[in-house]
């Protein structure tokens, strides 16, 4: 097993906006779980998730479909 190649992109969660709508956890189940209150929980904790190359498209969808614009890719 090799580690997946990084896309160089980082997904940032703005907690002041996130309203636990959960669409990002549906789109990126490999990277985000749902915490007991419904908020996205990155595998390594924290507010920023490094996006592997093969999930870059899903991450872009997550950003576009978050109903409250709580996600940013940079």
């Amino acid at each position, binding site marked *: 097993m090799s580690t997946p190649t990084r896309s160089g992109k980082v997904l*940032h*969660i*703005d*907690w*002041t*906006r*996130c*309203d*636990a709508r959960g669409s990002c956890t549906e789109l990126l189940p490999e990277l985000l779980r749902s*915490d*007991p*209150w*419904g*908020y996205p*929980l990155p595998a390594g*904790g*924290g*507010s920023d998730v490094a996006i592997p190359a093969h999930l870059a498209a899903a991450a872009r969808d997550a950003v576009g479909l978050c109903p409250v614009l709580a996600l*940013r890719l*940079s």
Partner: protein
Amino acid sequence: MTMVDAHVQGGHAITPPTGTARLLAADDPAHAAHLARFGALPGRRGADAVIAELERAGLAGRGGAAFPTWRKLAAAAQSGRSGVIIANGSEGEPLSAKDSTLLHRSPHLVLDGLLLVAAELGAAEAHLVTTSAQLAPIRRAMDQRADAGGIRLHETHDRFVAGEASAVVNGIERGRAIPRDHVVRLTASGLGRRPTLVLNVETLAHIALVLRFGADWFRSIGSSDDPGTRLFTVVRGGERAVVEAAGGTLLSAVLRAGGADPARVRAVLVGGFHGAWVTGDAIDAPMSPAGLAPFGASPGAGILMVLPRGECGLARTAQITAYLAEQSAGQCGPCANGLPEIAEAMGRVGRRDRNSSLPRQLRELTALVTGRGACHHPDGTARMVLSALDAFDHDLRAHARGLCQEAAA
């Protein structure tokens, strides 16, 4: 710097303070006493030279995070745009009294620091933020000198998170001092999207002294990893005493200076409500980052809260946790939902609930909230709670059996 370089002011020489009374060395808060003790503002030398001097001094921020001050200045200067300097005198931590004491006793050192940094960095604006009790003394100080007219003074509310840097910026901009999400550092984009330097008022007062008397003078006291002096607030019961001591002074010595008898101390909450509980050997540890690191603590904003013998640390921790949960700005899900749950579980531990899974629940919940907020409030709360589980490990087991060794009740 030696006596030879002593500044000359109005015909008599100014000697740099020699003891541990530096920030609080002036006889009274008036401008005349300030000039008599410290001399006039040093001349301009350019941003690069200022940053280099602060780097040699090794001054770290006194607002809690202990970030090297020169690095923050360098980051703000690097943007090349004219920015904003904010003196942070919010002192949201209810245990702390050092910033308000400094603003009452030595307001001119803080104003000096603010004006010097603003001038050297070519800042467009200089702001000073504090709570209502300090407004009058600062206004008085500003009126006593001709160069402080441009400083904008702001009142902030007495809320724990109001002093967090992005909350301070938010408060000035929109009148609501609650933290906001920032992916880029404030030194790149803060107030009105301009480069913004938020510095604790004590940090600014030290800058005023370093730029007068030099880095060598600054380092002539304190330890190599914590040079210079620091203001500490020693809290015992309802009493708070502010002490200026050299960096690296033994915790027990600071306690004694603050009127607490180390022999009657059961534990100390080092660094305030976001700090860590220490017991036993730690009471004789040096109050420096390296000295406290083995005990999982750091000097933070210099708060030392004493837990006297006969008082239950777990019950006290439960009380503090409830306060911190209430103080969440309530805008980030994990913080708004997680802290009340942590407080609930901690409350049950404090009340000697016999549920033995509570410590595990607390470890899970604290892990869950850490790093998941727009500010470090959840992280600080989690750290304090975890340190209590370690420091009061014995009592934890007693509480699970419905007993308490410390409080007889």
